[in-house]
């Protein structure tokens, strides 16, 4: 059985950008902006904290 969410910090998530021009990157639903860098065909996103569930949105 699941009882508690697990909290993680300082995560780096890299999403292949497949030649798309992603520029608006945030956590839903509060639209907290996240910093990112572009390198080697990936957009590298830093997520300071994630507890249980995080919904990361990468918009063109």
């Amino acid at each position, binding site marked *: *059985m*699941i*009882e*508690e*969410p*697990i*909290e*993680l*910090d*300082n*995560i*780096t*998530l*890299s*999403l*292949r950008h497949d030649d798309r021009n*992603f520029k608006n990157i945030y956590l*839903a*639903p509060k639209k907290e902006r996240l910093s990112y860098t572009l390198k080697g*065909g*990936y957009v590298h996103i830093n*997520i300071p904290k*994630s*507890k*249980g*569930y*995080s*919904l*990361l*949105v*990468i*918009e*063109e």
Partner: protein
Amino acid sequence: MKAIPDVGENFDVETFTDRIRNCGVDYLVFHARCNQGLAYYNTRIGTRHPSLKYDLFGKLSEACQRKGITLGAYFNAGISSEEGLQHREWTTLYFDGRSLREPRFTPHVRTMCYNSGYRDHLIEMVKEVLHQYPVEGLMIDCLINYPCICPVCVQEMKKRNMDWSDLSAVTRFAEISAVRLAKDIAEEAMKINPDLLISNNYPSYEELLGINTYFDVVSLPASDSGYEFMPVMARYVRTLGDFPVLNMTGRFYDWGDFGGLRPEEAIKSELLYGLANGMRPNIGGHFHPRGDLENAVLDRVERIYKELRTMEPWFDNAKNITEIAIVYPKKIANIRGDRQLKSAVRMLSELKQQFDVVTLASDWSKYKVLIFPDDILFDEETTRRVKKHVNEGKAVISTGFSGLDPEKKHFVLEQEWGIKFLGENPFDPAYFTVGENCNKGLPDMPLSLYSNGIEVEASGKTRTEARLVKPYHNRDWDGEYAFYYNPPDKVTEKPALTINGQVAHFSHRIFSGYYDKASVELRTVFSNVLGRFLAKPLVKTKNLPSFTRVFVTEQPERRMVHLLSWKYANDRRTH
């Protein structure tokens, strides 16, 4: 239960539907007729519950219509004690002449024959409900392939040249009968309401394509299905077509459990897992037959749905992006239960890969890598597709007996695999040692394979990337000693891993091994091989534990990445 003396006595339909609406529920499925065959509406055909004093379903349907809640009528098809008691010739007959199941303490004690008079009776009840009430959905549950050798079934099996004395043929016939009943119910129902939502539950999803307008995937992780069932089904059902799939979990721990309310985090995490895979949330309850309002349950559902609804814009019609397929062209019973499939799904999930589980029912051409876990023997159609995939320069990883012909005599695509099948490997336990091309992150020592496998001979320019290591002795009992402690002896020339162009083959059934032991070394070597074929996967992560799940979905002009970090405790019965 028929014995309940006060059905519906406390039911306050206005408060109940107000609460349901405030939870954000847009579709409610409620029993018109229950698992015991009793109706909760005014029926001229069936049997209304004897202690119910009014038209409960009718009242509910009227309130739902007024409040904008779409109502679905629930019928159980496979089990119906009341009707089985009244018409004993409507129940299934087993090989030994029994019509009751042993042991008898089960909801399935008496099961229904889909070719008896029950068939028309059920269709008529469905029609009756659709004519009488503003119902927009239909769920037909438990269309299970209960074997039946009643005279009606035997006669038809004889006509079809099916062996009525063979359990698997009779079971197959029962499945054909169940699907036929589902189809006939749907046809009659659509005549009354062409926009009806229909979900038949239990026959294979592939056979219900074109009959169901939406699908339910029912999973109670705290009960028999465990936490490894939904991950397989979520990745499989979505490959069958573009229709709504509901992810049905329960507020309770087990069926028939009226006194269980699982933690908010448990239910929420299961629903989010579905949402990250394009499945809509559905929480099952056990309604109190007296109609008692279960505020504790509704409070919990309301809190969960309220949170989920804040994220609805990013879930709506989002589609998963996948680039790998686990190919599993087997029957639904295997897809539901097989260990090596669950293991492959778990391994790729831990590696944060984006993948589907596919059968022959879907197109494989979009995938960059096809994975054949352990025991996938190649029929003609699989062979044709794999040959095309490899000719297009795309990759394959197969393990154990996968890739052999159905008689297990040779590799069907010997040239593409670049190896010859020599026979089964006798090493027990089998060890292997991995060469420098694929050993990143592995301990430098002979490693256990935790599974059996085959022997192959590498041909032409096929590279052998890992070799089998022979144990001193096999596991055995020699009359005096149990050979339990069997260390690795010498490295052999026998390949444990070969790579020919874009095709990699592991000689042993590493997914079975991973299911049994969760050996991180097996996952690491698999990941190294996958990394050679898919150097730039859709997602890469740093600082994420193995249990975190990552999904990528897409809507027009944006992508979503879902991170799920829950871990189930192993200290209770959770599998």
